[in-house]
């Protein structure tokens, strides 16, 4: 278990002080894949690097299995780092070493004998399916292959934790999918806790069960992915989700939208359905029970992990008081209704 407690970090650039992390507290469970999401400059990279103390926080604690990394001596920290593998956006492979030698590097650093290194590296080459490339140099590999080498290298000392710094951001969609599949496999087969940061909501959606959203160095919210997508608690998360899921309204609708209530206009409402709740009965029920008419403007269904999330944007016309009653009626259900404005 990794606990981050009241973490602060500021950068001093010439005469300006830039707060990078402000009072971050998080708990990451053993064996999960945890995502940290945020736009560039949100502080996610600083947060990830604090977890193996590549960045020294100004204040706060990093507890890995109840050991506070911030209080360790330099040599104890080096030992701890061998328990925390890390991969990077730009792979950071040594160009002077072959695939085999790159994977062997962390084992050389701990002084493992050659025979042992050979055994370990061979099984890692199998895991990342690069046996055929072991004598190749990084320049001869594709981006996806390079990241696989980096993953094998990060796993060579059998760490319990793997930190992924924008691991797929430099990859094409196909390589991204294969690297993500590999990370999932490592997580399920070896039980490695994976913490990844990304600016791509898609990556989070595909592999993470839980995630945190960072904005301007602050933790906006964190919890299960489904909750974040279906019921974002903060405006920032809502906007990020909309952007990631392409939930933008059609331009024609957007142009006529206004935020002030106007009894003469109809309401634009987005319903979010979780799991197997179907939208059809809900809309027909509302129409039957209340004196309103509902016009579906936009609808789509997203699969997040194993769960299905449906989004439907409707234009509801009728007396506004009755519409209010109708919305109140669905409050207790699992369907989330959100008034976007008036058209």
């Amino acid at each position, binding site marked *: 278990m990794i606990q981050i407690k009241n973490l602060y970090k500021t950068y001093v650039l010439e005469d300006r002080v830039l707060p990078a992390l402000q009072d971050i507290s998080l708990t990451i469970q053993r064996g999960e894949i945890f995502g940290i999401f945020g736009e560039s400059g949100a502080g996610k990279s600083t947060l990830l690097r604090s977890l*193996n103390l*590549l960045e020294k926080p100004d204040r706060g604690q990093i507890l890995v299995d109840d050991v506070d990394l911030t209080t360790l001596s330099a040599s104890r*920290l*080096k*030992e*701890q*780092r*061998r328990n*925390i*593998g*890390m991969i*990077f956006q*730009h792979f*950071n492979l*040594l*160009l*002077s*070493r072959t695939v085999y030698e790159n994977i062997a*590097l*962390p084992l*050389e*650093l*701990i002084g493992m004998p050659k025979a042992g290194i050979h055994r370990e590296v061979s099984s890692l080459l199998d895991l990342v399916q690069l046996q055929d490339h072991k004598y190749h140099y990084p320049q001869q590999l594709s981006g996806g292959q390079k990241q696989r080498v980096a993953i094998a290298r990060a796993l060579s*000392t059998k760490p319990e934790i793997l*930190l992924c710094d924008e691991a797929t951001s430099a990859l094409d969609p196909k390589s991204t999918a294969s690297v993500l599949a590999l990370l999932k496999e490592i997580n399920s087969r070896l039980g490695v806790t994976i913490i990844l940061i990304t600016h791509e909501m898609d990556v989070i959606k595909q592999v993470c069960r839980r995630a945190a959203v960072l904005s301007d160095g602050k933790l906006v919210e964190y919890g299960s992915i489904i909750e974040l997508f279906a019921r974002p608690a903060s405006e920032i998360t809502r906007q990020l989700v909309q952007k990631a899921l392409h939930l933008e309204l059609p331009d024609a609708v957007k142009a006529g939208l206004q935020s002030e209530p106007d009894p003469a206009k109809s309401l634009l409402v987005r319903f979010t359905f979780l799991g197997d709740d179907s939208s059809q009965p809900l809309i027909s029920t509302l129409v039957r029970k209340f004196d309103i008419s509902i016009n579906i403007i936009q609808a789509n269904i997203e699969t997040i992990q194993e769960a299905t999330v449906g989004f439907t944007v409707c234009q509801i016309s009728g007396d506004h008081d009755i519409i209010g009653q109708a919305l109140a009626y669905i409050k207790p259900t699992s369907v989330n209704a959100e008034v976007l404005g008036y058209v």
Partner: protein
Amino acid sequence: MYDLALIPLVKATWETVYMVFIASFISIVFGLIIGSFMYLTDKNQPLENTLIHRLLGLVVNVTRSVPFIILMISIIPFTRLLIGTTIGTNAAIVPLAIAAIPFFARVSESALAEVPYGLIEAAHAMGATTWQIMSKVLIPESLPSLIRGSTLTIIALVGYSAMAGVVGGGGLGELAINYGYQQFNVVVMVETVAVLILMVQLIQAAGDIFAKQRRVKAILIFSCVLWAACIGYQFWPAVPQENILRVGVMSGSPEKIMLVARDVAKRKYGIDLEVVTFSDYVQPNTALDNGSIDANIFQHGPYLEAQAKAHHYQLAAIAKTFVYPMGFYSLKIRNITQLKENAIVAIPNDPSNGGRALLILKKSGLIDLKPGVGTLATIRDITTNSRHLQFKVLDAAQLPRVLKDADLVAITNDFTGPAGLTINQAVLKEGSDSPYANLIVVRDKDKNKPVMQTLADIMHSDSVLQETEKVFPGGAAIPAWK
């Protein structure tokens, strides 16, 4: 004149290889260590330490600013401490290495800085120690740059080694300067320069291949072979040399005369005379004072006096040899009365010969000097210059070469012969009353040794006298002991 002189060429080539290889090896090893520390103590690096980083940078910059020839002279005490002597090939290695260490330190610092920071971050994340980051990541990753930088350093050292002649270091540079340049021997100049060009080409080509193919093993094997050759050369059982008298003279004509003296010494007195040649006027006294040579024959009384005073030398003159009258030469006028207003007059830049030239001009009435300045007069001591003569102060060896550019050139006797001049052609020359007779100078404590008297006898022998009159015909050398 058109003797290709292959044996001296091969010897000089080997001396250059020897000096440059050992100096390069030392400077690459120490330069890499210093460069690594400069890199590691920089901001955001593992051993961040602003004070040490700045201090190293300052030392490196200061050393790099000092002109090589001045560096070579100023570290003489250190060289002596290390090698036991300040002349010879080994002594030349010390200043060469010291000049190149800061250069390679900068080269390696920037090579290391080219390694992407991400790799260092990755190594930190693996729990690497600073030493492991250095040996497993930084050096292997920057190897091509380091090899290219080494190539640069070695070639720079080939250039510097040309100046090793100043301390009797030998090598191609000395051959080219002392036997080619100063004796106007075009063949020697051309062949040495050709060998130097070939050498630089080979080094560059090898460096490029090694850098491209990361041939560390090949470099190590190559270094080992060269080390073995150097050590073999150094410790090859030489003929036991006892009863040796090392005499320092200027290279060129005086050296020719000394070779005759060497024969006389061997034949008549059974003394082995080793002729050590120099190409500047400072080193022979330094070498004599510190025991690298036993006597020198190149200077006159006023110069010895000035040098002894300036450097607190305990030296003594035991006998006079010849007066080599200094003359003013010209390609533009035949008689001093033809000298125009604003004429350009070139004189030597060493204090005593410069003063000597000015005294001749004073005597001829062209200028007047401050009263009492004597033999150490400089152009600043000129009080009257009615013809507005423009003085140019040049290296003595350079003077014969400016005859076409200057109206009047003062040339010491060392350089008239090779330039094809004789004293009879001088438009202005010293009279027979010159105080500038050359002296045999020894350390003060040795002046009563019988062997020194023998040296004087050798120098005054008929064979030496005949050779001198042959080398300096037409009254260019007048025996001063008679």
